[in-house]
């Protein structure tokens, strides 16, 4: 550069192009700036969409359980409506309605181009009104009040009740009601609830055991019948055994049902009479009351109390009211159990397949074909797997298992219908391509030098794979398993065919032999979302539950994945510092 300048000065007549001395900037396109912008833009768009989605779901999910204030609306025609304001929207009333309005309102509606706002109130009291929700147009609401004594009662049946406590009885004796936080009231409520729990425990546990045993005995008899025929001596003996055992069990049963009866009678004496705003009354047992709170008179602490008690119920209890109320514990358990079982199946299966494909199979046309087929499997719509799972696993495999091992239960299917095991196997099949592809790549990434080093030490091929290749490829393999798990936990469509049901209070794991019941149908969070949001009688009431359940499903998948990622990173750290 310097010499060029000196030359130019020294011999000005010489034609030295000026561009030599000026610094030319590199072309934007050559630098790849536009590409960089579009790449960054695409990433930003993706991140914004994900964040937006999470914010939407979490914002809706987290506020669902906050107790909302109750309003009493006196309408122009004298009707009184009490309930939680649920949401508001603009709507276009029909011309007749507009014509019937006061001139003032007619002007307002006209100014808004014929639109007027209306509010949806969650009135509850389904047993009295025959509806849960009520729209009140703005022009009809003459007066809106928030009375302090108006309370929200969550019940075991019929949905919530909005109203006031008229009176309550303990052991049939009338008591003076002061407030919901009256210690006596709370004590009676707690006692009744505890008794209801006890009844349930006896029915589920002790009486459940008796029924289970009786059923087992009956199946044994049927087995004897199938083996030896109805007229055989064995059948007679088994029949006598069953009769004797049934008599014994009947004694136990009577004892337990008497216990239950006693508890029921005690609970029947503890009732409270509720009144809705119109004055109509309804008497319920304390045991049927989940919780009650004076919605407009809550301290911050009480609000939090209601909020967290609802979360607790949601996480630990069973659903009620067609899944729109109560908890989702069976669904959490079902999702978790199914995902775990799927991983137990898919991980070894996928890894073994990939090991053979990559390490042992002779690389040729056949292996290429298998590899392409595996990759294509990942693109098959999941519902197809569901159909396959039902047709092959449940009907063919399950049907054969039933015919071989459970002939006494036929025609009732045991394994011959959808269940936890078939659902897990179906999902394992669905996710196995992910594991195979990831494992193959991880195996291919193990440096050749390491394999040669091991072989040169006199290790066999299997020893090399076992001690050198597999540990080294493990982080990559686990990445594949994590991806498979994430996909499997979020899948719903095929599950509807192979074992997920709307309501399955019996968990796949319980205290009855053989303790793990892989043949049972189960609940799943993903399906629960679908069911509550779109299949329930009361779609409006289910909507908030959709968000809460979504939050929970995201949290569960995140938790499972995070655990797997931590395990993988531990492994990775072990191999850090490698020079290759």
């Amino acid at each position, binding site marked *: 550069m310097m010499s060029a300048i000196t030359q130019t000065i020294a011999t000005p007549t010489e034609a030295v192009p000026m561009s030599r001395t000026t610094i030319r900037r590199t072309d934007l396109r050559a630098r790849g700036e536009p590409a960089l912008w579009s790449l960054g833009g695409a990433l930003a768009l993706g991140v914004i969409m994900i964040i937006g989605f999470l914010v939407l779901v979490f914002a809706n999910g987290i506020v669902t359980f906050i107790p909302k204030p109750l309003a009493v609306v006196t309408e122009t025609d004298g009707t009184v409506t009490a309930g939680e304001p649920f949401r508001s929207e603009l709507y276009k009333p029909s011309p007749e309605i507009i014509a019937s309005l006061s001139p003032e309102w007619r002007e307002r509606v006209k100014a808004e181009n014929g639109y007027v706002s209306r509010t949806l109130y969650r009135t509850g009291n389904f047993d009295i009104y025959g509806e849960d929700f009520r729209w009140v147009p703005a022009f009809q609401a003459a007066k809106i009040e928030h009375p302090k004594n108006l309370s929200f009662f969550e019940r075991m049946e019929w949905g919530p009740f909005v109203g006031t406590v008229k009176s309550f009885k303990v052991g049939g004796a009338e008591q003076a009601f002061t407030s919901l936080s009256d210690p006596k009231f709370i004590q009676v409520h707690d006692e009744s609830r505890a008794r209801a729990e006890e009844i349930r425990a006896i029915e589920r546990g002790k009486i459940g055991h008796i029924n289970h045993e009786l059923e087992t005995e009956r199946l044994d008899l049927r087995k004897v019948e199938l083996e030896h025929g109805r007229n055989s001596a064995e059948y007679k003996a088994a029949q006598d055994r069953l009769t004797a055992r049934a008599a014994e069990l009947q004694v136990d049963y009577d004892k337990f049902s008497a216990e239950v009866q006693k508890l029921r009678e005690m609970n029947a004496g503890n009732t409270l009479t509720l009144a809705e705003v119109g004055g109509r009354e309804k008497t319920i047992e304390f045991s049927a009351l989940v919780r009650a709170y004076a919605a407009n008179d809550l301290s911050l602490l009480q609000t939090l109390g209601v909020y967290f008690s609802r979360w607790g119920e949601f996480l630990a209890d069973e659903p009620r009211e067609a899944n729109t109320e109560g908890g989702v514990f069976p669904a959490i358990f079902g999702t978790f159990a199914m995902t775990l079982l799927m991983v137990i199946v898919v991980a070894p299966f996928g890894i073994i397949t990939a090991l053979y494909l990559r390490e042992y199979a002779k690389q040729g046309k056949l292996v290429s074909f298998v590899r392409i087929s595996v990759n294509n499997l990942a693109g098959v719509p999941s519902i197809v797997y569901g159909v396959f799972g039902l047709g092959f696993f449940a009907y063919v495999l399950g049907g054969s298992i039933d015919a071989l091992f459970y002939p006494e239960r036929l025609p009732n299917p045991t394994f011959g219908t959808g269940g936890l095991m078939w659902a897990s196997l179906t999902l394992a099949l669905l996710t196995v391509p992910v594991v195979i592809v990831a494992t193959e790549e991880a195996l291919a990434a193990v440096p050749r030098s390491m394999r040669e080093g091991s072989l040169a030490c006199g290790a066999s091929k299997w020893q090399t794979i076992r001690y*050198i290749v597999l540990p080294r490829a493990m982080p990559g393999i686990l990445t594949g398993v994590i991806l498979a798990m994430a996909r499997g936990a979020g899948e719903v469509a095929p599950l509807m065919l192979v074992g997920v049901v709307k309501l399955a209070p019996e968990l796949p794991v319980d205290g009855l032999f053989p303790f793990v019941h892989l043949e049972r149908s189960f609940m799943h969070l993903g399906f629960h979302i679908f069911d509550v949001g779109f299949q329930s009688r009361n779609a409006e009431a289910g909507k908030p539950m959709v968000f809460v359940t979504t939050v929970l499903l995201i949290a569960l998948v995140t938790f499972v994945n995070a655990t797997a990622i931590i395990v993988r990173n531990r492994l990775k750290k072990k191999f850090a510092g490698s020079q290759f």
Partner: protein
Amino acid sequence: MNMETAVAPRPDHAFESTVYHVRAGGSGSVLEIKDLSLFYGPAQALYTVNMTVEKGLVTALIGPSGCGKSTLLRCINRMNDLVDAVKITGQITLNGEDIYARAADVIALRKRMGMVFQKPNPFPMSIFENVVYPLRVDGVRDKTVLEETCERALKGSALWNEVKDRLDQSALGMSGGQQQRLCIARAIAADPEVLLMDEPCSALDPIATAKIEDLINELAGQYTVVIVTHNMQQAARVSDNTAFMYLGRLIEYGDTEVMFQTPKCGRTQDYVTGRFG
């Protein structure tokens, strides 16, 4: 072994036959290579190589890139078996035993040889486990045997004093030179009959290289070493015999001093004096 008929050298590769002036080690030969030819698919990489490796001496293989010296080394412990479409004719015997015999057990054979590679390739395990790996895969469980072997091998590779306090730490945390000496320790742990080294210093800095060279000198006498190297000074410094290869042929094989001072072949002279290569 039935010797397959060696493919005749192509006319454009016609060379004068190999010149031998091997210095004898006094205890006979360990390896005998007879008429060894190797094909990668249609391409021939080795042309009827004949040589013996003297017991207890260091034999260097030198030659320009692609001359087949690494291929020859990898024939000795049958590492070329891993390559697809490789065809080998001729014979190699290890202490009289044909390693390409149909009945030969490759795994047992490799246990009798140690190999050190170009780049250090410690396994992702502890230093101890790295060294005793050949014994582990051989099924040795006895803890005292393993510990004694580890100490002996690490002392043999002059690494003991540096790592004796951190045997249970990952081998991947060591420096490149240490890693390579660890690989040498691993290679000598099972007391091999031959130690094969494939350019063991090419990925190392000069100081680490000097240490490895010292180590090779120490190992000489105790072990028979065959070393492939690009570095002619290194061959001159560490070896007793040197084989010069060119285009898949063994050109000259003999006493290192003679090879570097008064080579018998013109090509060798050209190569060792740096006129080509």
